[in-house]
């Protein structure tokens, strides 16, 4: 991703983790990432992005998802994983961002 694109798009990453360490890393890399903590998965659950009992000991974990929202907050591109080994190709996400 070019510098201009980096400046023009905000990457918002939601996970149950406390994200201090991830944010330090992102800041160190000068990447425009914002890590948000959803420790009880309330937002993730309200979005319907739960892999029930998918974690260790049968706990619920997020279903990996990547969503491209345009300037008006409308979903323009969406990738929902149905196999946790599979993640969207960054090239596809980038192409979706470039069409905005």
């Amino acid at each position, binding site marked *: 991703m070019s510098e201009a694109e980096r400046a023009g798009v905000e990457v*918002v990453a939601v996970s149950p983790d406390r994200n201090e360490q991830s944010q330090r890393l992102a800041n160190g890399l000068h990447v425009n990432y914002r890590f948000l903590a959803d420790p009880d998965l309330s937002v993730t659950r309200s979005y319907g992005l739960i892999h029930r009992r998918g974690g260790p000991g049968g706990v619920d*974990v997020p279903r990996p998802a*990547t969503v*491209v929202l345009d300037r008006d907050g409308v979903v323009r591109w969406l990738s929902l994983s149905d196999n946790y080994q599979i993640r969207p190709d960054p090239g596809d996400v980038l192409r979706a961002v470039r069409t905005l």
Partner: protein
Amino acid sequence: MTSGRLALLSVVIAVGTVVAYALLLGVPSVRNHPEGYVAAFAIAATVAGLAVALRRRWYAWLALGLSLLLFAGGAYINFVLARIPAEPTVLRVGERPPDFTLTDASGRQVSLAEYRGKKPVVLVFYRGYW
């Protein structure tokens, strides 16, 4: 090809698949086709099966056992364990998802709505480290 060579080839394919998959996990086209390693283990098992058919030696049986074990394990991981059952989601292309407010790493409250009218957002939900 002799039974010994076929058995060796089977082991090389099986072990090579494990090593290659681990090394190339960062390459999207490899990571996103996990059925590839299952297919490679199936090939290794077929080659070992040929080795056994040729000569019923211990090394041929060993190669067959190893490759079948990896095939069964790989198929279980990919087709059962890693599957995420589809649940209804609020996300639809062309629609605006509900707003939310969460805390960022510095303790600041961040709402999705604050980007509206300002910049596009790539919103990522990930599993985090357990």
